[in-house]
């Protein structure tokens, strides 16, 4: 039973993969171009730890700002769409269409608009984030059924009270699904935004690693980007579990 239990642990697969990386790469003589030995990747990370830390913070700030702005806009649109069926029918399809616009290609234009500042990255992150959040908010608010609203009305609740005490709590689980989708897109937006010219950030380091063909550095950055993504996602999941524990059936 013991080994089975051990293998059942969620970290088992990851630990095994790391072990395989450690053992198989030197054993099979994998060319470093494809997969450098784990030790060299760690050593490379250590050699640029300060730059890595600064870039991590910078990208984190851009992602967080873009995320907050995108969520604010997304929730606002979600509420507006619930409030007006006509606006939902006319604008939401345009938003859907806009999603297939490769915003990345817009990067250059966004930089022309906002200059080479943090604002350009925040704008790209915002654009990518707001749509899933708006749709999730709309879906959530649509789950409020008429009977419950009538009950609230019969007790003399005002419109604001119905929104804060009934509609928003019901929509919250769905909104959180949108937030978790949106946060990884914010990270993508921030990283891509940095490609169009900057000196600090994970996206900048990624681009430099590509130009100088530093395979080890690319792997370091893949891991760090993953950690940043996991950190943000985990944070949201934690907030959700603590404050939005109810489920609407």
């Amino acid at each position, binding site marked *: 039973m013991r080994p089975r239990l051990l293998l059942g642990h969620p970290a088992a697969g990851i630990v095994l993969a790391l072990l395989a990386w450690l053992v198989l790469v030197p054993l099979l003589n994998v060319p470093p*171009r494809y997969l450098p030995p784990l030790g060299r990747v760690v050593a490379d990370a250590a050699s640029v730890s300060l730059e890595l830390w600064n870039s991590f913070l910078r990208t984190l700030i851009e992602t967080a700002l873009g995320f907050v702005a995108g969520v604010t806009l997304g929730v606002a649109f979600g509420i507006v769409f619930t409030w007006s069926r006509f606006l939902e029918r*006319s604008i939401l399809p345009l938003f859907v269409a806009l999603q297939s616009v490769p915003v990345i290609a817009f990067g250059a*234009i966004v930089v022309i608009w906002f200059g080479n500042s943090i604002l350009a990255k925040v704008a790209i992150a915002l654009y990518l984030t707001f749509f899933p959040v708006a749709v999730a908010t709309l879906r959530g608010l649509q789950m409020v059924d008429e009977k419950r609203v009538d009950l609230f009305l019969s007790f003399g609740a005002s419109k604001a009270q119905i929104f804060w005490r009934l509609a928003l709590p019901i929509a919250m689980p769905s909104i959180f699904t949108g937030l978790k989708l949106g946060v990884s897109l914010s990270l993508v937006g921030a990283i891509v935004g940095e490609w169009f010219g900057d000196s600090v950030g994970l996206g900048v380091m990624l681009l430099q690693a590509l130009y100088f063909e530093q395979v080890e550095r690319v792997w370091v950055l893949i891991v760090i980007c993953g950690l940043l993504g996991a950190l943000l996602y985990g944070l949201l999941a934690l907030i959700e579990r603590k404050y939005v524990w109810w489920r609407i059936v």
Partner: protein
Amino acid sequence: MAHRVKIVATEAIPVLFALVMLLVVWEVATSFANIPQYILPAPSAIAEATVSSLPRLAGGLWLTTYEAMAGFAIGSLLGLSIACLFLLAPPARMLLLPLVIALNTVPSIAFVPLALLWFGMGAASKIAIAALSVSFAVLLSALEGFSRTEDGHINLLRSFGAGRFAVLWRLQLPSALPSIATGLRIGLARSTIAVIVAEMLGAYNGIGQIVYRATAEMDSQTVWSAILVSSLTSLTLYGLLVMVDRRLIWWR
């Protein structure tokens, strides 16, 4: 027929209205406020530039679409096969699923430099990166779809003597299809974007590369035209997928 007319009236008219309003405001604003071309060209100017540069864009558009479709096909097959493997072999799922989730936290664009270093500047690296981002979307939504099959139904089928594969083919796959279709839609949108991103960082041709060069030459009209044609193409593909999806998956 009457039903059709009603759908057009309630769905198409508001969208067209909003679209026309947007274009009119944009056109008027750019000409009245004297916004320079490089900041925001008027819609008419973009349309004109697109028509005149269409022959130049066509080659890149064809390549980008080909790469995105190849990546989409490979990625969907890969995602679906891994999902089926996980379903048929629970130990594999136990061991590999955390790995998949860990890989999924890495933004797929972070893999672009790796794809370019591994597969070179040609089409292979773009197909690989598109396949990667599609396979995650399809795998995760297929797993979610499979988890929706009710145990009672599985037991019923098994009690009639159905084997593991028969249960998968006749029950679990059909009941997961709506969820898989959602994954395919997300994947399709992602595949074009992934290809364009990869092309911007290194390619011989393609929409991403055209945009990259036009940016370097400060040729903003070509940037807008390239964005327009690629968006229209991916919208068309998306529309086709939704249509196929509605025809094929009539149960829900």
